[in-house]
């Protein structure tokens, strides 16, 4: 398959390095490469899921402002990197090991969004992961989940089980020691794992150029003996294509792939962050012009695969989805304080049991 390789500015604009990256849709929505073979209906679902991602952010930020949610990491601007990769995988057999900005993929993998919100609010009910066992919990420590993904993939391979593992992380995380050790082990074990670095240009306030002298995260794969590809992370078709290729190779025993999805963080790092302190306005303008949703919608429309009706239906679907999630969220009773003591170990142990007994007794006395 031929792919158009274009030179694109590094996401942060500043000291923009020329990096060869896979791009299928130009920022203005023009097709410049060969699109992956995806049914029309699925293409629509992809756009709809991207729209939902944007909606997550709006709603969650509003909840957070009203004190109804804890810190929230928005993913606006990165919807293509999430949706393109998620749709190239099969959640019924593949596994996903997320970082903290993959709420959209987690929902795609079967996590009720209400549960995600509960997790963000600090409710222990939010911690439960789906029983199918193919979705791991959000990882807070940067890159710490990468060796987990590798071990999981290697374990599947050792047991001759089908399924490929996908894991996402940021540009910042790619500078942690865990990244290195995990990717190296994945290489030597030929583990069926796909590493997706969402290079959104920033590790909180630090642009990629001040994190590393490397032009691209994808260049690091050579040091581990497997392919690394940079893709335009705001081009959902490019992300899909690269991920699908990687998945096919992994499933065929060809081992890991590192994909750098060069994308843009349109919002704050999290609701606790004030990006106006450090994001140059020009950078944001440029990033806004590269909005992944607009780009994909333009192309779908030009192909007669999208129109106002479908847009309205998608909006409605998003509304319904959100309404239901918020309803479930609101309906969840406050946690019982004694839940503190649950799920540390299979057996509680005498010391912790005594701590719990005291806790219960004191609560009765005090209140």
């Amino acid at each position, binding site marked *: 398959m031929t792919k158009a390789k274009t030179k694109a500015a590094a996401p942060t604009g500043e000291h923009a390095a020329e990096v060869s990256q896979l791009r299928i849709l130009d920022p203005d929505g023009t097709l410049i490469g060969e699109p992956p073979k995806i049914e029309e209906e699925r293409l629509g679902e992809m756009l709809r899921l991207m729209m939902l991602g944007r909606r997550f952010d709006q709603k969650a930020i509003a909840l957070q402002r009203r004190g109804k949610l804890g*810190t929230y990491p928005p993913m606006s601007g990165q919807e293509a990197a999430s949706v393109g990769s998620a749709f190239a995988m099969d959640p019924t057999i593949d596994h996903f090991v997320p970082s*903290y900005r993959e709420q959209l993929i987690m929902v795609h993998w079967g996590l009720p969004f209400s549960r995600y919100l509960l997790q963000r609010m*600090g409710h*222990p009910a939010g911690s439960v992961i789906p029983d199918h066992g193919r979705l791991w919990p959000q990882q807070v420590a940067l890159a710490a989940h990468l060796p987990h993904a590798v071990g999981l993939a290697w374990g599947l391979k050792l047991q001759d089980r089908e399924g490929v593992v996908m894991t996402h992380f940021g540009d910042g995380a790619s500078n942690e020691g865990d990244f290195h050790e995990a990717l190296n082990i994945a290489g030597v074990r030929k583990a069926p794992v796909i590493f997706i670095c969402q290079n959104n240009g920033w*590790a909180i306030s630090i642009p990629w150029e001040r*994190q590393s002298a490397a032009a691209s995260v994808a260049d690091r794969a050579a040091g581990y003996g497997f392919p690394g590809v940079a893709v335009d992370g705001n081009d959902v078709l490019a992300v899909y294509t690269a991920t699908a290729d990687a998945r096919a190779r992994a499933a065929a025993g060809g081992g890991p792939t590192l994909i750098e999805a060069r994308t843009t963080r349109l919002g704050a790092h999290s609701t606790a962050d004030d990006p106006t302190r450090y994001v140059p306005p020009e950078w944001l303008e440029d990033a806004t012009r590269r909005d992944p949703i607009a780009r994909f919608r333009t192309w779908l429309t030009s192909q007669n695969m999208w129109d106002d009706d479908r847009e309205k239906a998608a909006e409605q679907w998003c509304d319904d989805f959100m309404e239901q999630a918020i309803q479930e969220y609101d309906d969840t009773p406050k946690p019982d304080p004694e839940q*503190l003591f649950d799920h540390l170990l299979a057996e509680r142990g005498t010391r912790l049991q005594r701590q719990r007994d005291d*806790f219960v007794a*004191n609560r009765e006395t005090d209140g």
Partner: protein
Amino acid sequence: MTVKNMVEAIRDTLESEMERDDRVILLGEDVGKSGGVFRATDKLQERFGADRVVDMPVSEAGIIGTSIGLAGSGLIPIAEIQFLGFTQQGFHQLGNQLARMRYRTSGSLTMPVTIRAPYGGGVRTPELHSDAFEALFAHSPGMKLVAPATAADAKGMLTQAIRDPDPVFVLEPLRGYRLVRDEVPDGEHLVPFGKARIARPGTDVTVVGWSAMVQVALQAAELAAADGIDVEVIDLRSLVPLDVDTLREAVSQTGRAVVVQEAPFTGGFGSEVAATIAEEAFPYLEAPIARVAGFDLPFPMPMLEDHYIPDAQRILRAIRAAVDY
């Protein structure tokens, strides 16, 4: 004297120490333009330039490890770790490297390095941002460990740390950054290590705490006062070196001790304090030394954290039990 909150006191101390000695250099994640996620380095890059206030890649081992090299080159690095929990990523560069360089080289290579990190809960952070694992840093001979509870001590101990010829780990109470406000001495202010502070004198029971727990202990002391119990509160503030003398003298007077830590009960630094008191003040003890601590659990989900962190009631119960023994 100027009233400041803790993070202001820290920021101003960093500024004045950087001004005083141009070998002092700050490094960490987001310490530059952003001014640190808690603004402890606010505007310092603007003032001292990007070579002295350095935004580092997300590499905690690299931050601590390069600080070792910077110190070896003759500079005086102050490394900020964004949250104490992530110090674990660079754990091997602390006790096995930083703390050991002087001993490893029979005194040839010294390490005037300060590591700072916010820690402890109470502000509804995501996972791994709130654990109060000071004990993990108290068992590395060659490194000092201090945990100020007031803005004044934050200034005095941070200054002392920066000027100390050896490595010092400074723990900063996350929830105290803005909540704790007190009078901070203007100009030169040093608090020598190894000397606890009597935060409140009292004769019936000695409560020992540090960092954020000092405020809670003081609240408990107020409550106890209403019951007619006169509680002494000791702010340990220097964990390593430990002020054994003050602990001994205090408990020899009161005969009763309650040690408070936010960390999980088992294996916490409170056990060291309790064991030390048990040994040193043995003949004077009139009740078992109580340890009030977090439960033997990871720091829990935000909606449960208020139940986890020791509060004034829990301390009060231990005080009463000690008195009633």
